[in-house]
């Protein structure tokens, strides 16, 4: 497997960034996810948090337990071990139902026009791709996913909306994502998922960075039915696992 060059830089007295080549690349990001998993698997009380970015892993540690030399060494040891590789490329794909009705995705006509497509064709293209979750940020469960086919990769709105309903699915250039809670935002909205992606009472996020997500088009009637089942805890996200 390919090895990626990296550097470790200090961000503050309790944090380092492991920085990989500056690009959006699934293989490189999987490499970062793998490093993250290995660090988390240590269950090390000295590691406080680690946040994967597109091409970085931000690691915070307890200075009562770790100093810089120790943390540098720890990361270096993991990355430079011969056995460090993404063992048998394993893929977890989650199916997220999305209703592309115009009442739920107010920008769908614009995005279709951008790609010189009918709405039907746009939906077909958006649901064909397995989107990779590079990172989660902005809000709990806000997944930064790519890569949107260039045909429908419309840039974000010039003027962000002040209010976007929870569950909205949008496009911002090559990225696609879902708004887990109502918030302001500038992504082009093409649909909405009936799933409650964030629930303050059960605040568990059902996907993580490194997963793949495929959208499944549903009708407005199915939308309501799934919403009911999901809110009573009966809806299970379809997950398929592919190993090589």
């Amino acid at each position, binding site marked *: 497997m390919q090895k990626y060059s990296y550097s470790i830089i200090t961000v503050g007295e309790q944090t380092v960034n492991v920085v990989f080549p500056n690009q959006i690349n699934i293989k490189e990001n999987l490499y970062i996810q793998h490093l993250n998993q290995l660090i988390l698997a240590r269950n090390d009380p000295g590691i406080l948090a680690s946040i994967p970015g597109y091409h970085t892993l931000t690691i915070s540690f307890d200075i009562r337990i770790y100093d810089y030399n120790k943390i540098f060494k720890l990361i270096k040891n993991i990355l430079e071990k011969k056995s460090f590789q993404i063992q048998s490329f394993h893929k977890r794909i989650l199916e997220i139902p999305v209703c592309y009705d115009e009442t739920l995705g107010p920008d769908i006509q614009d995005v279709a026009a951008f790609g010189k497509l009918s709405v039907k064709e746009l939906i077909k293209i958006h649901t064909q791709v397995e989107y990779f979750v590079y990172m989660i*940020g*902005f809000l709990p469960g806000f997944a930064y996913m790519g890569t949107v086919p260039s045909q429908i990769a419309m840039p974000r709105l010039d003027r962000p909306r002040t209010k976007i309903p929870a569950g909205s699915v949008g496009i911002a250039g090559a990225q696609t994502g879902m708004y887990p809670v109502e918030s302001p935002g500038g992504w082009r909205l093409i649909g909405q998922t009936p799933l409650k992606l964030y629930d303050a009472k059960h605040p568990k996020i059902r996907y993580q960075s490194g997963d793949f997500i495929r959208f499944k088009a549903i009708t407005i009637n199915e939308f309501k039915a799934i919403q009911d089942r999901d809110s009573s805890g009966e809806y299970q996200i379809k997950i398929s696992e592919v190993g090589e």
Partner: protein
Amino acid sequence: MRGIEVVASGLATTIQDIGRIKYQSAGFPSSGAIDHQAHCLANALVNNEENAATIEYCLMGPTLKFTMQTFIALTGGTVQPQLNSHIVPMNQAVPVHSGDVLKIGNLKHGRFGYLAVAGGGIQVPEVLGSKSTTLRIELGGFKGRTLEEGDLLPTCDVYTMPSLASRKVSVETNNTTQIRFVKGPQWNLFSEQAQHKFMVQTYHISNQADRMGYRLRGKAIEVSQSNMLSEGTVLGNVQITRDGSPIVLLADRQTTGGYPVIATVIAADLGKLIQFSNQMAFNFVLTDIETAVKELKQQIKKIQDLRKLWQQKRYMEPIGPARKAALKIGKLF
């Protein structure tokens, strides 16, 4: 239920601990007390562990009625708290009894204050390993929201406090106007001129200042307009936004960000910055990681030493029934 009844809510009053640190990779802001140091000191004063939940308030403290017996301590921004209309000191463990009313009042200096309650703090349920409140997503704390009149906060009865008489500290008023920082991950994306400007000019905290971050007022800093890939954020990161103004990222910050980070305020100086008023003029001064680590360790040690001292004194100065009676008698007049 026994505990603390909220008589008047104060401003932006929430339950906080040291934060929901482990779930940042899923996009959960860490939250926690915005003035970590003041929160930890308050807990140490009442013999709580540092992660016990305290009450945090902003500019105006709440008025609270106790329906149980315990010990409290107030730290952070300067207030003139009154217990049953008698002024009680800050930065000191104070016994309270059922029926007592504590009026914390307005902050004379600083922005955020803390009330710690002995017996493990405010007993709200842990959510994702923390009792901290994140208002934006209605998570944790007391029903995910700010405290309101009539709320009843569960706490535990505490009857004794080891070495109560010596549980006080004098917190030096810090007159420094220098905030130290280490170079941020994108320091080199800025021109030498921009770096220089960041270090020599005087900044003020703007009106856009909350638990998420403080936007600063100052002359704009030249910043590259090219897009940066988002990466994880850290407490104290100083982002430079498109218009050239800095934002210091604080407790409720987004877990990832796409603006270049020119600097990170050292943890030991963050409490100072957080408490500055809008009128306070200050500068950023470059320091190195070694100094930042040394300073933070010193801060941690200070509180550890106090804890040790109070533990050792435990059997030398017990609080006797006479003192308790005296307090009760005092209340009759």
